[in-house]
């Protein structure tokens, strides 16, 4: 299982590879897009400039540094829907990116995926984004038919769900998002506007909560409030890493375009450490839970919490 790290500039590639990253993904916003839609609606779902490489020249430098270390680079063009008039220039952009050495594009727009399939790229991979909400094997098959060569699964699946999907994926590589950036909502079904320059998103805000009707059970308001004010930086799926690798997941993605290099590197180190331990120890599920929590404490300096957990079957917050 490969470790897929975010990258925003060439100068951080070496450090991230040293930390354990084996693949990269980046954002890039072409001028024709930003001129049309302004700074908030980007073609890679990040409303702040640090989350994208600043220019094609910088992307070339990222590609070169990554190639020196035998790491491939993918580019996120994962906004959807793309208006029809934007599909041809976006497909042209992808062709240009492929020519520069980009190995894959992460796509969440069905018409763009179909257009890329029709262009029959010889080497380029098309990754179906987690925004396609792949909760089952049928969705993987649907996306394969639409032109996906890799599928990023929905973030809410358990290791058992993923294992079952991997066994029927028929050779389509599956990718799991498993460190940092966990959202309380299903990303593919969430239509919140992430426009706050302070990066406080609607899913993190603290709401006034008023029950309407008389039957709201006790605990509902508290359960809603549990996700409010949660810092996604602390999100983690470390306990699952050995099991995901064992069941054939192709890559584990770390969230964090736009984060500082040290944060990205520390994430790659944590995942690499857990993976190495899993390869050595061939652990059962309980041992994975204990080790994952230990690596978490080492990485973050605190205990893990349920609201930051990608895989609650490992009982976050309980040390066994």
């Amino acid at each position, binding site marked *: 299982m490969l470790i897929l790290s975010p990258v925003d500039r060439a100068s951080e590639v070496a450090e991230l590879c040293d930390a354990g990253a084996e693949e990269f993904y980046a954002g890039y916003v072409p001028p024709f897009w930003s001129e049309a839609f302004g700074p908030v609606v980007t073609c890679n779902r990040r409303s702040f400039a640090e989350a994208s490489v600043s220019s094609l020249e910088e992307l070339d430098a990222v590609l070169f540094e990554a190639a020196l270390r035998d790491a491939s680079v993918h580019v996120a063009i994962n906004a959807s829907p793309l208006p029809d008039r934007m*599909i041809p220039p976006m497909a042209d952009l992808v062709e240009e990116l492929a020519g520069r050495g980009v190995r894959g594009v992460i796509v969440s727009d*069905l018409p763009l995926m179909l257009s890329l399939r029709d262009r029959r790229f010889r080497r380029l991979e098309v990754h179906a984004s987690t925004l396609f909400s792949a909760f089952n094997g049928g969705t993987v098959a649907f996306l394969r038919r639409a032109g996906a060569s890799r599928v990023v699964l929905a973030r809410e699946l358990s290791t058992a769900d993923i294992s079952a999907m991997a066994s029927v994926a028929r050779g389509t590589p599956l990718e799991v998002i498993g460190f940092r950036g966990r959202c309380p909502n*299903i990303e593919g*079904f*969430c239509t919140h506007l992430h426009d706050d320059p302070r990066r406080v998103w609607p899913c993190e805000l603290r709401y006034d909560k008023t029950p309407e009707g008389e*039957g709201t059970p006790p605990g509902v308001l508290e359960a809603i409030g549990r996700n409010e004010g949660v810092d996604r930086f602390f999100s983690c799926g470390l306990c699952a890493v050995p099991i995901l690798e064992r069941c054939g997941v192709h890559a584990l993605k770390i969230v964090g375009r736009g984060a500082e290099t040290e944060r990205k590197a520390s994430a790659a180190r944590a995942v690499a450490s857990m993976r190495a331990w899993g390869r050595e120890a061939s652990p059962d599920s309980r041992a994975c839970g204990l080790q994952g929590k230990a690596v978490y404490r080492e990485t973050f300096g605190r205990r893990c919490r349920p609201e930051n957990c990608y895989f609650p079957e490992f009982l976050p917050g309980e040390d066994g």
Partner: protein
Amino acid sequence: MPCTYRYAGPDGEGARNLPEGVGCAIGSEYCVHLLPSAGSLASAAETCIARDTPLLLLTPYFRDGELKRLLPLFRAIPGGADVDVAVNDWGALLVLRALFPGIRRSVGRLLSGQKRCPRIGASPRLNDAGRAWHGEGLFSSAKARSWLGKEMGVSGYHVDSLPWGPQSFGTFPDPGDGTPRLYVHSPYAVVTVSDSCPWIGGASSASLSSCPRSCRQGPVRLREVSMGGDMLQRGKARFHPVRLDDLPPGVSAKAHGLVYYEDLP
């Protein structure tokens, strides 16, 4: 004239009380535990046959094991019923196409691509094109409509009536034989869906084999000043009420069906 549907509850419990000529919508777009049983679906379909009205079955997303629940449901649809299944899971669409090719299917609101956050109407950081972009969706793409129609047998699209982006319906074909159907839902636009349900303590809905459905006892209103409007949460979904007079005129002309909710779905 578009056909009017009313939401009659997850099991179609209100189906018998709908006004004459009004179609019936049942099921759920966001929770597998709010799907009707096969018996309830058959009963709602029989009611619709007797009243000569159409039935709209709303379906959610599914894990592999949950997807199997669809099979007895679809088998329960009696011959002669005018049924459309709104699909919110690409895998479910594939299953329908393979095993139930005779059942009419449409792309549900969760897959439509429209953005419905109340902030969109209020954000000072959006330019006009950026705001309008949030109203676009699969329905506005000729390429998507063509492929989904030919390859997956999709015959319709479900959307919300939103104040932004009415021009995105410009290329959608006018109602007619052989053209895809547009279903416009109102007034509760789906803003977001979680896999965790506060009504079962914040656990994943997949952690229960069956659910007491206590979310049906009443929603929770969510208010935060920067959001540009309140949201209502029921179960795993948050909705933004959009006033009926916000329905853009160009949209209603394209609609095959208007799906109304007297209460949150």
